[in-house]
């Protein structure tokens, strides 16, 4: 009885209809939090006495970096669910999570680079975190490229799910290796200000932004998965009826 919802998830149509109700809530909440956190971080949080105002970039850099890593696990785990239980919905979530994760990883890479210019005086430093973020970006691109390469949707799903799982096993190893590599080559002058020393008045907006980014991630994943559902079920009657009804919202 308790597992009924899990079996229902196997039906993309059920999920599509059910999730319609969540979207306005998620949209309002995540956008509001994003705006609130940004304004707080940009204008109200105190200026860092060492880095000056450039540190305000971390309010988007850190949440984006969190989600690019978390997003990979979302992708790999839904890929595994798709492989094991042959759940169509999980495959669609996986495909959507790959694109969203790649975009967020790109955002965190670019904001990290832009942050480096006023802080370190160069656009790119082979720092441990940025380097592993770059490798993560490549891992995402690999999954997307493999997904795109197959004509058959089913094969594409399974193949990219395996790649995502292999990547998931490798991510901790890659992160540890890059960390170790960095300590080996670390120039003494360049060092991150560790986050634990951040003053609480700087930390609260960061917390708001992290929550906002998580909510936004859920929203983006939901929207993308729903459009994927429609696309894959485009030959079915219920999608065609939806199209006929046309202008219906979401």
């Amino acid at each position, binding site marked *: 009885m308790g597992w009924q919802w899990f079996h229902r998830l196997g039906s993309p149509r059920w999920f599509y209809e059910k999730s319609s109700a969540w979207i306005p809530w998620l949209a309002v909440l995540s956008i509001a939090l994003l705006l609130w956190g940004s304004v707080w971080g940009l204008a109200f949080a105190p200026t860092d006495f060492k880095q000056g105002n450039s540190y305000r970039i971390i309010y988007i850099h850190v949440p984006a970096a969190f989600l690019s890593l978390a997003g990979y696990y979302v992708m790999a785990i839904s890929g595994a669910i798709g492989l094991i239980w042959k759940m169509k919905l999980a495959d669609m979530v996986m495909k959507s999570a790959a694109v969203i994760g790649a975009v967020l990883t790109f955002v965190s890479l670019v904001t990290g680079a832009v942050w480096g210019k006023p802080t370190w005086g160069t656009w790119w430093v082979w720092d441990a975190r940025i380097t592993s973020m770059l490798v993560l970006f490549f891992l995402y691109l*690999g999954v997307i*490229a493999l997904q795109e390469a197959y004509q058959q949707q089913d*094969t594409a799903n399974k193949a990219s799910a*395996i*790649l995502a799982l*292999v990547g998931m096993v490798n991510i901790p190893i*890659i992160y540890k290796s890059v960390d170790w*590599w960095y300590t080996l080559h670390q120039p003494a002058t360049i060092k991150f200000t560790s986050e634990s020393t951040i003053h609480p008045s700087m930390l609260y907006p960061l917390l708001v932004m992290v929550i906002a980014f998580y909510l936004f991630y859920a929203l983006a994943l939901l929207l993308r998965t729903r459009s994927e559902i429609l696309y894959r079920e485009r030959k079915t009657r219920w999608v065609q009826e939806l199209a006929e009804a046309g202008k219906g919202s979401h």
Partner: protein
Amino acid sequence: MSGRAAGIDDSLQAQATPVPGLWPGFWATLRRDLLLAFRHRGEMANPILFFLMVITMVPLGISPEKAVLAMLAPGMLWVVALLATLLSLDGLFRSDFEDGTLEQLLIAPQPLYFQVLAKVLVHWLTSGLPLTLMAPLLGVMLSLPEGGYGVLVLSLLLGTASLSLIGSIGAALTVALRKGGLLLSLIILPLYVPVLIFGASAVTSVVEGFPASGQLAILGAFLATSIVLAPLAAAGALRISVNG
């Protein structure tokens, strides 16, 4: 041609006698693939020539100065060896996929894991091992300092085996794609990062006068892990590629 005949021979034997066990199956695949590789000696030489030529480009592109080359040598040798392994990976399952041997392997009573392991072993014997043996010579050309050679060979010996194993997953995932070669590199290269880091670092630290036992131990751990896990993933990927 005769290589294929050998394969048919084996399967005929398999029909006549009761189902051969795990090791006979492993050895049969190993022997068959080695024979095939030996018959295509020219193809086997390509990665090694690539290794040699790219290393020749390094002094031409950067500087023939001894000090500069010596500093670059460990990393360069490792990066190029890695690329050379990648070059030959595309062919790992391709010909078997095209002539249908792969389907036979999939329905064979022996576990696919060991068949994949045998094929990867042959790949390593025909690409990783020659590259490793070739490396000291190229080390001389890049004026790698005296003490580095032993560890260079040892690290490549352990490392290229891991590279072949990890790469087999990518080869299995892309075998059904017509233009899989470049895609294979894209999906596999990020996974090679840890092996490259510890491999190159082993050589560097020995050259700088530190022990490399830690790095070598980690390379060994990578190898052990990939022996256990990589053929499993590759076997799963092969089933997907062949059956859709």
